[in-house]
């Protein structure tokens, strides 16, 4: 199979999912609202004191981003599973992992990017120093795709199950821990004026690993789930 047709398959899936997301755009807003609401709960629950919020902010924003992603993951394969499009994907002449990659990219563009764009606003709400905002956005740009890629494996494993939602969080949240550690730490360091290159390299390495292995695992998981 030629590279051109592989690229065509990838872009078809990407374009299709973006079109679908655009036509159901009201659903897209939910993870973002969730992100904002969860973050606005912290000053109410802990303390509105800027010093306290400042120290919590990197972790809180990252945990909220993690949960918002988790919430949006279910939609990645759900409707395709229900209407049979997922079967057609598995029966396509193209490698399923390439099609999966298209879907994951679409998912990140539709949910990861809005979270990334909302982050500066929330950082201001939590009194983060403005020098750490670029670091926050960089970690979200590197870490966000990892969340979508690893999450896809979990969704693929639970897509056929009636009560997959809670199980999904049990399956993938432990796998998110390294991303959370490096990303939140990078942001805290940036806020304290320390170097963050090391953490970013780690995130980059994790992204490279996830990008190569996760689509294969997701494709295998989809085949198993659809039996």
């Amino acid at each position: 199979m030629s590279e051109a047709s592989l690229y065509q398959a990838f872009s078809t899936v990407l374009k299709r999912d973006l079109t679908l997301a655009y036509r159901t755009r009201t659903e897209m807003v939910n993870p973002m609202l969730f992100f904002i609401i969860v973050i606005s709960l912290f000053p109410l629950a802990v303390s509105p004191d800027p010093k306290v919020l400042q120290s919590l902010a990197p972790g809180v924003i990252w945990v909220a981003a993690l949960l918002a992603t988790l919430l949006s993951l279910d939609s990645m394969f759900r409707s395709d599973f229900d209407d049979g499009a997922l079967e057609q994907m598995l029966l396509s002449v193209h490698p399923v992992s390439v099609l999966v990659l298209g879907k994951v990219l679409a998912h990140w563009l539709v949910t990861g990017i809005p979270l990334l764009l909302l982050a500066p606003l929330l950082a201001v709400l939590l009194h983060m120093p403005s020098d750490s905002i670029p670091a926050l956005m960089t970690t979200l740009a590197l870490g966000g795709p990892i969340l979508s890629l690893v999450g896809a494996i979990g969704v693929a494993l639970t897509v056929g199950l009636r009560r997959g939602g809670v199980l999904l969080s049990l399956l993938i949240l432990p796998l998110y821990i390294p991303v959370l550690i490096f990303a939140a730490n990078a942001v805290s360091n940036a806020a304290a004026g320390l170097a963050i290159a090391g953490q970013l390299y780690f995130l980059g390495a994790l992204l490279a690993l996830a990008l190569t292995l996760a689509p294969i695992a997701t494709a295998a998981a989809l085949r198993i789930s659809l039996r």
Partner: protein
Amino acid sequence: MPLTDRFPSQSQMPESTPDKSTPGLTVKGLTCARDDRVLFKNLDFRLEPGQALQIEGPNGSGKTTMLRILCGLTLPTEGEVLWNGLAIEDNRAEYMGAMDFIGHAHGIKKELTPMENLQVAMAMANTRPEQSLEAVLEKVGLRGFEDVPAITLSAGQCRRVALGRLLLSKSLLWILDEPFTALDVQGQAQIESMLVNHVEQGGMVILTSHHPLALKDGMLKIINLRP
């Protein structure tokens, strides 16, 4: 080496040397059990170009499972399915290029128009059709509905879009699960003539239906799955 297990041995290779010159689907010793219940046991048959196979049986007798096994989505408990003499899992790329499956859930996205649905299907099948998409939609009786979202179409019209996929791809083998569901009398006749035409031109059709196809003797095989 006598193996006293009932599991398929891994070293099972087709006894006859693969013969690429005669295309066809061969089924050997196919057995499927679900939760202690044997759906079918030791089925053997062969389907060649210019033949159709109709699978009959009451609800719950395993018709859909059988079709899913034949297209490689589900694994049989025992036995194997060969395409052109090679097990379908070893010959996936070729088999997927030669086979089209329309299941009970037909994979039509509700948010896309019939045209867009067919475009996606075409990219997934990696084919360049001889006829235009408009012509295909006209053949399945959807003229004038090209650009409305599929959500506004009736169940029967959606099924027509799905069946239109068959005309686009140049697949030899069509595997169809209850293709006449939700179609009106006129639609049933249209689709039936489409299937008969395909077989008479050297194609192959496997379907589950209670509706007998008007084919000459020798062209139609029937398997009855009794519980």
